[in-house]
């Protein structure tokens, strides 16, 4: 049931991307509004699927440990938030991308950028549905913590904001390449979006790293153990810290910031996928 809904959401995102593309090609305001509605409908269904999976995961866990009182029920609900494996994290990643685009950066959601964002959300979800094991597995003891919810939530909202900045950076580089072709969206706006998305992502990544450290402190007995995931999230943090300083202190603008945003997102991808698949460590479950 939930996988069907997610399949549908993927299609809706693809449709939204198509509508946005048409809106860009014919510079149609009305089509653009339709595209937004399509994206919003997809987002609503996506949220529904998220909660559906949460419920399913809770039911699954309560078979093993029927909660005795209200407190136990609550903590089981929190522990079973569907953010505990690769599939669930991808689904939430895709959700955050379209959520941020529709809510935090709605002013920028037009033109080629809207196409890129909708496509990004669609591709991530398609990858999750087609190539990743979606079964619900029981939680290992280390994951049973109230920190799971806040840690994974903040990290992935951060990743999603960086993904938006990456999309904006690609478009910016494309539109400011050496040619006279008429611009699809005004680059200054993309420039601002890049900065704002990076700032938001940086904030969430920082909180994600901090909550992760607090959690690690109670679970592993060390707030920092140079586990590959930790190390790479720190490298990512360094790159974006560099970007923010370059812009705010040194006044860098435009293409140089765009290249840094792309470098930063490469580090995000490596933190997310590369570490999980290439470097063994404590985070091997995600």
């Amino acid at each position, binding site marked *: 049931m939930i996988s069907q809904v997610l399949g549908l959401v993927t299609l809706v995102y693809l449709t939204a991307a198509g509508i946005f593309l048409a809106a860009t090609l014919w510079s149609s305001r009305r089509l653009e509004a339709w595209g937004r509605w399509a994206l919003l409908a997809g987002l609503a269904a996506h949220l529904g699927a998220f909660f559906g999976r949460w419920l399913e995961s809770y039911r699954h866990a309560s078979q093993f440990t029927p909660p005795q009182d209200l407190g136990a029920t609550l903590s089981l609900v929190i522990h079973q938030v569907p953010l505990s494996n690769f599939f669930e994290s991808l689904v939430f990643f895709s959700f955050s991308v379209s959520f941020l685009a529709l809510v935090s950066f709605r002013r920028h959601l037009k033109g080629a950028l809207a196409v890129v964002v909708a496509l990004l959300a669609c591709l991530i979800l398609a990858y999750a549905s087609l190539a990743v094991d979606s079964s619900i597995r029981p939680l290992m003891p280390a994951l049973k913590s109230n920190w799971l919810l806040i840690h994974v939530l903040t990290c992935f909202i951060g990743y999603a904001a960086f993904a938006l900045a990456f999309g904006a950076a690609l478009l910016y580089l494309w539109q400011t390449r050496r040619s006279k072709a008429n611009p699809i969206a005004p680059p200054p706006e993309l420039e601002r979006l890049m900065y704002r998305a990076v700032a938001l992502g940086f904030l969430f990544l920082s909180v994600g790293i901090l909550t992760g450290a607090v959690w690690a402190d109670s*679970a592993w*007995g060390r707030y920092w153990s140079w586990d590959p995931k930790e190390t790479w999230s720190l490298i990512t943090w360094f790159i974006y810290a560099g970007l923010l300083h370059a812009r705010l202190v040194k006044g860098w603008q435009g293409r140089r910031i765009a290249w840094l945003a792309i470098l930063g997102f490469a580090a995000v991808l490596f933190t997310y996928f590369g570490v999980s698949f290439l470097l063994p460590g404590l985070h091997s479950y995600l």
Partner: protein
Amino acid sequence: MSRNSPPRSLPGRLWDFLTSIRLTVTLLLILAVVATLGTVIPQNEPVARYLVSFGPRWGPVLLRLGLHRIYDGPWLLMPVALLSLNLLACVIRGLPEAVRRVARPFTLEAALQLPLRGQFTLPARVNPETAVLPALRQELGRLKVSNHPGRQVYYWESGRFRPLGPYLIHLSLFLILLGALVGKFLGVEGRLAILTGETATEFTLAKGKGSVPLGFTLRLDDFRVEYYGGTATPREFRSDLTFMQDGQEVGRAACRVNHPVTFGGLTFYQSSYGSQLAGPVRLKVCKGQECHTLTVGQRRGENLPDGQGQVMLVRVDANFQGLGPAALLAYREASGGDQPQLFWIPARHPELARRLQTPFYQAGPHLFTVEELPLKFYSVFQVRRDPGVWWVYAGFLLCLPGFVLAFLRPSQRLAVVLEQSPKGHWQGRLLGASPRAREVFQERVDRLLMHLKKGTAV
């Protein structure tokens, strides 16, 4: 400090170096490279492994440079120490100015100096206050007012504390780094493994630096592990601990994953567990109708009672494939050639011995079942004392308001000046500035101007 005179004193040049953004970026770059190296080169492995994987030429170079313990050596500590200095210097340089800016109230004079954003006119007959105030209140909330005959000024400010944000963040990072250094040099960290029912008085330091007395006696009363039904995935494991001083019991606690226990300044974290044999294993060996009992110890070859084969107990597991305790046996029949059979005997599932293509399959002619498999759990703890952790947590707490101020509370200043012309009508000017949030600010200005001009029509 004079900024424009070219010949600088040595301390002055050092100060410039320490507070430069170039230093920060260089250090971040170096740290990124060091951190990357640490994830590419396996860390804290035995020396021999480096010689094998990196060859006789590069292995020793790598070891000499300390790249196998990159996170403990100067490669990381030097840039981190410099970065701490850099952070502190930047805070010292900029914080006083930021505090002065925040402390300076937003006065009428300052409001009148703001750049012009738009103009509107009110006819003479309207009361300027009723025409302008509702719109302003709705958009901005509380306003400061200055009333003079012939001139009214409403002014407003938000994000006044924004300049402090970056300094809070940098100060918090400094605290975190300081806490990490304090923990590294004044804290201890190690591991402790205890068998059920036994006691410990010392623990092993990390990275083979010997062992340290606990200062008390720790007894593992019980260890329990529960599995998700029918699988080998543990659902929860816990150790029941008793703390004793001079033979007297002084405390009891249950230690679980995610729920550490602190006693006598040391914190115990449930890390892992295992099981080992508590005595010899008793097996039943049958060949046809003829059965014998056989006692085997670990890793010792044993002749079968009928003399027609040999067995050796290789390993035991408390929950093999979710089927409960099991023993891995190597068995060679006297006439069966050189190759021994290897199979697991699950104590509670003897019927699996006949199942082909499983790790339980016994080809015979002898058939083995477990009569007694006495297992004892041991529990492994991470042990730590870290006086720096509170500095780190203070840093975490401090950086949150820092982030909110720096990124979510842009400073905005707005003023509406109404002046009565000699002819009696009111000339309105909207002034304002928001250097770091132009976009949001412009929207607000447009919205305000729309409302103010609407007021004109009333």
